[in-house]
């Protein structure tokens, strides 16, 4: 239908809740799940005369993030008041950063699935990341026609990470959000719990005819707390904007909400009141000064970053970019893989990767277990890989041994192979005996093969494998069978 080829432009603002003990400007706890208002102190509820005092742990996490994305850590940044009235914001303003944020620039490297089973690399530039406080929660259930306010969340430290409008599809936006989610967990600044709101995305979405230099008018989708919703909301919004323009309409700048039940986005605030926040520097807070000694110390404490480790997996272990990225999706998975390779040797790195990403991942997924709770340890998996490598067992038998390890039928691959008699038969004489039996029992297949039917050969191989209970070395069976029939 459409004659115009539309290009989608997406920028993301992600609010990551920092995993400190206490709030950003007060000594109240940020632990999840407390009784309403039990963790809202005088500063958080904005009693008169209180003053905010900045949490060093929150600043340190911002520095960690800045270093991890190759950004500039501002030697001096300032806090500003963002003014608006809402009952879950007792001060009438949110303390945030406006003109001089703590983190400037930086990049996120990602691998975007191309929808055809492959993936392409993409770099998304970051505009900034700034520290701010969260607001409380409004509960609109019926309290005799009133609204209930819980201020436990008020003052929780957030790092808002703002990307450049460089994503061109919902798939790229999701890949970016996932890469960012993995990174903040990797460097341990955020627990990444999306259900509890620790990682929330706002998506700025616009469309323009391909080739046009100027951006179209954008709408901002607020508070997307799952990757699936992010994808659905962007897809719906893009189609809505294209339909509107093609019908002769014009997109008005607006803030919209996504309704997961209907799958639609709808406008939330009227335009006149939106974004009129009258920012000004907060006189209660002095400039935040970060010296190079502090930055150096934080740098020294950072773990090896996923991008570096992924590069190492590709360079040292010969893994593909896709495998390396998958194995560095979380620190726990990467560690499990490293432990497995360390135990069996890097010559088997590729086999280890296949097992960690394949059978193990699938089994963990099915059992809804985290890799840290895996019933099969890295050492046990390494033991299994070692037996595949030295031809003690075939891949098919290895899957059986893996199941047995998972079900705790033995302590090690070796113990299970011994106890269940799964050792691969490589003795030529023994295999020949099996082949002779199979040939004698299947004269029809033999005839068919002699008549030129290739399929009959595979059927005979299958029979031999079956007769050996899967233990015969398949390559040897092939070779010896050919010889016998030849």
């Amino acid at each position, binding site marked *: 239908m459409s004659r115009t080829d539309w290009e989608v432009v997406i920028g993301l603002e992600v609010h990551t809740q920092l995993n400190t003990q206490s709030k950003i400007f007060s000594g109240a706890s940020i632990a999840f799940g407390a009784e309403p208002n039990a963790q809202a102190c005088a500063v958080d509820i904005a009693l008169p005369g209180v003053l905010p005092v900045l949490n060093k742990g929150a600043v340190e996490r911002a520095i960690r993030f800045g270093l991890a994305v190759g950004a500039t850590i501002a030697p001096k940044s300032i806090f500003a008041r963002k*003014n608006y009235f809402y009952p879950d914001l007792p001060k009438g303003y949110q303390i945030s950063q406006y003109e001089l944020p703590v983190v400037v620039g930086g990049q996120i490297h990602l691998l975007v699935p191309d929808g055809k089973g492959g993936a392409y690399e993409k770099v998304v530039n970051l505009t900034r990341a700034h520290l701010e406080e969260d607001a409380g929660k409004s509960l609109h259930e019926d309290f005799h026609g*009133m609204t209930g306010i819980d201020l436990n969340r008020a003052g929780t430290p957030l790092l808002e990470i703002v990307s450049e409008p460089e994503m061109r599809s919902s798939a790229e936006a999701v890949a970016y959000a996932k890469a960012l989610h993995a990174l903040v967990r990797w460097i341990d600044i955020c627990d990444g719990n999306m259900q509890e709101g620790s990682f929330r995305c706002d998506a700025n979405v616009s469309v323009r005819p391909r080739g046009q230099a100027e951006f179209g008018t954008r709408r901002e989708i607020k508070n997307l707390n799952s990757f699936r919703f992010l994808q659905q909301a962007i897809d719906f919004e893009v189609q809505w904007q294209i339909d509107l323009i093609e019908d002769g309409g014009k997109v008005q700048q607006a803030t919209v909400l996504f309704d997961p039940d209907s799958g639609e986005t709808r406008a939330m605030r009227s335009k006149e009141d939106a974004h009129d926040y009258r920012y000004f520097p907060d006189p209660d807070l002095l400039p935040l000064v970060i010296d190079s000694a502090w930055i150096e110390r934080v740098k020294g404490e950072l773990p090896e970053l996923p991008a570096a480790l992924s590069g190492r997996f590709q360079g040292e272990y010969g893994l593909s970019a896709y495998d390396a990225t998958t194995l560095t999706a979380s620190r726990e998975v990467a560690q499990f893989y490293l432990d497995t390779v360390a135990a069996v040797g890097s010559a088997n790195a590729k086999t280890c990767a296949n097992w960690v990403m394949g059978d193990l991942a699938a089994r963990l997924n099915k059992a809804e277990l985290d890799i840290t709770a895996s019933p099969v340890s890295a050492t046990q998996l390494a033991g299994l890989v070692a037996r595949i490598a030295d031809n003690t067992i075939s891949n098919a038998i290895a899957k059986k041994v893996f199941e047995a390890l998972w079900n705790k039928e033995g302590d090690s691959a070796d113990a299970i192979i011994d106890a269940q008699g799964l050792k691969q038969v490589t003795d030529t004489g023994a295999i020949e005996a099996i082949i002779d039996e199979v040939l004698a029992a299947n004269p029809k297949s033999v005839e068919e093969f002699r008549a030129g039917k290739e399929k009959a050969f595979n059927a005979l191989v299958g029979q031999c494998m079956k007769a050996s209970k899967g233990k015969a070395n398949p390559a040897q069976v092939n070779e010896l069978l050919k010889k016998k029939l030849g």
Partner: protein
Amino acid sequence: MSLSLDEVRHIAKLARLELAEGDLAATQAKLNGIFGLIEEMQAVDTDGVEPMSHPQELAQRLREDRVTESDRRAAYQSVAPQTESGLYLVPKVIE
């Protein structure tokens, strides 16, 4: 720069101030007077002067990340107009 009466109304609304129609003109004059002051200040040559965000030339003091506050909800809520199940109650907010 000077403000129109509509802008004065808008600013008052954003600040949740109730301004009687009769007070608008006087408020407009006061605000415009402040703009006059700012214009005078902007005549000063500030080339090469680093802008200050705070009148004191000091850096923010930081607090160690420790929980130092205990639950004093009962005391705070004893002066709140209305509470229920630990929540502060406010007139219905609909968005």
